């Protein structure tokens, strides 16, 4: 029953995210032919600096369908929209003082705080995994409709890396929700943090090489190398630590 309660609390956030990402996945695939047409008539870009480099890199990646899907979907769309929902799904929980949150009612039941928090976290992570995998799996399914193919394995591997590395945002939002009494502050703080991280990665190539975006996008795998194991392990470690700290916070606090 705790699972069903956790699902009830987060289902609208999940379903909105799911619908949005499914639409984005469809737009990404179906928009490729139009992009190819545009690239044919587009003049050569000779803008200098970091911006020029990024534009040229995007155009180069878009010449190949696999590169286009990776850069458009996993690097851009998912790193923005998915992170937004990861932070949103992590927010809330036992401490949220919204009307009818039932905190005292829950705490009066013979169930441990650890179990309540654990099931809430597990539900959020399962929803997050679904948000990472299901829309990504739509890519190989829809690609034949525009005369292209995208590997199921690629979709699964990129989706999984996105989930493991990006869970950091969920876990931090979850941890902040054991400090703040509303849903919005944890969400906004994590999004602010994600924005700063993204900015740093864009302005500093050195930072970018070891950045979370690279791990979430599994760039090393895309470029023919192996999976970013170190990054994945570190991200998973941070997530586990944040979730553990959140559980301890809830166990220790007075209501």
């Amino acid at each position, binding site marked *: *029953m705790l699972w*069903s*309660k956790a699902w*009830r*609390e987060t289902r609208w956030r999940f379903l909105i995210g799911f619908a949005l990402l499914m639409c984005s996945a469809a737009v990404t695939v179906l928009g490729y032919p139009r992009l190819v047409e545009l690239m044919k008539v587009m003049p050569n870009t000779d803008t200098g600096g970091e911006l020029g480099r990024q534009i040229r890199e995007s155009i180069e990646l878009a010449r190949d369908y696999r590169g286009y899907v990776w850069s458009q979907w996993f690097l851009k769309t998912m790193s923005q929209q998915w992170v937004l929902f990861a932070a949103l799904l992590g927010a809330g929980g036992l401490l949220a003082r919204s*009307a*009818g*949150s*039932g*905190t*005292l*009612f*829950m*705490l*009066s*039941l*013979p*169930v*441990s705080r650890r179990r309540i928090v654990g099931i809430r976290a597990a539900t959020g992570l399962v929803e997050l995994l679904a948000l990472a995998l299901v829309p990504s799996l739509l890519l190989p399914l829809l690609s034949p409709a525009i005369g292209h193919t995208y590997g199921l394995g690629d979709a699964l591997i990129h989706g999984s890396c996105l989930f493991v590395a990006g869970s950091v945002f969920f876990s931090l939002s979850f941890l902040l929700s054991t400090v703040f009494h509303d849903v919005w502050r944890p969400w906004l703080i994590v999004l602010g943090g994600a924005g700063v991280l993204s900015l740093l990665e864009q302005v500093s190539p050195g930072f970018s090489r070891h950045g979370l975006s690279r791990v979430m996008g599994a760039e090393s795998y895309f470029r023919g190398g192996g999976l970013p194991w170190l990054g994945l392990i570190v991200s998973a470690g941070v997530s586990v630590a944040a979730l553990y700290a959140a559980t301890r916070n809830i*166990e*220790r606090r*007075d*209501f």
Partner: protein
Amino acid sequence: MTDPLVIETADLLKSYEGVEAVRGLNLQVPAGSICGFLGRNGAGKTTTIKILLGMVRPTRGIARVLGLPADAPDASLEIRRRTGFVSEEKDLLDTMGVDEILRFTASFSPRWRTDLEKRFLQAFELPADRKVKSLSRGMRTKLALLLALCRGADLLILDEPTSGLDPAMNEEVLKILVGHVAREGITVFFSSHQIAEVDQIADHVAIIHDGRIARAGALDDLRESFRRIQVVFPGDAPETTFRAPGVERTWRKGRVVTVLSSAGAEQIVDEAREMGPTSVDVTPVTLKEIFLESVTGEG
């Protein structure tokens, strides 16, 4: 032989960032009693209840419920398995329907009483298909009470169970509560600042003031021990101090001296008679007066 204690606290203290909400609380609630927990706003009633249910950890002291330490996580689980609770805010899960919250609560209650569920659903006229958030304040209170009663609990802890109810609904809820307790023989510990309500259903009372128990015991004993003695003199009342035990307060006005005693009237009457009064009258004291005397010194 005295009844075993269902709730027992000793020197219980809870402070929040240096502010003491409960300070050295010594409370005893005997098994099978209906104990009213009276106090002004901010006296420490809700904090005490939260400590008993493991929602708040005491800073110091002992709190035992059903013989188990309330601050030990495993024991607290067992306490909550055997205790029904209604919070002051009638805090429930608003996203659920009435039927869903019943099933949800039953899933955590090994001793869930489906017979009571049916009976109270009918008695309270609760619509099973309605969303909890759409219930009126009165209906919400009834649902919260139903959820607590159906858990087959040995102890009910109710924090201001009738707050916000109109007098008719208040009466109805109290009647159902008393009827249930009489049938099931459980213990009820309920906080209130409605003295009439406590007077109506409680057999024990604990008055909390400034985080401490100011007065506690069987209601009949309290009523028996508290007396107002009015002594009328032929001229101005003499400036005198009564030596008898239990003198809580003495007023002097013209020819009349009034004494409030918490240890009967006999010795005070004897003392008064030695002063040559024209009359000595002894009258009983209401719970309201006992309460006011305990929390404001103005009984």
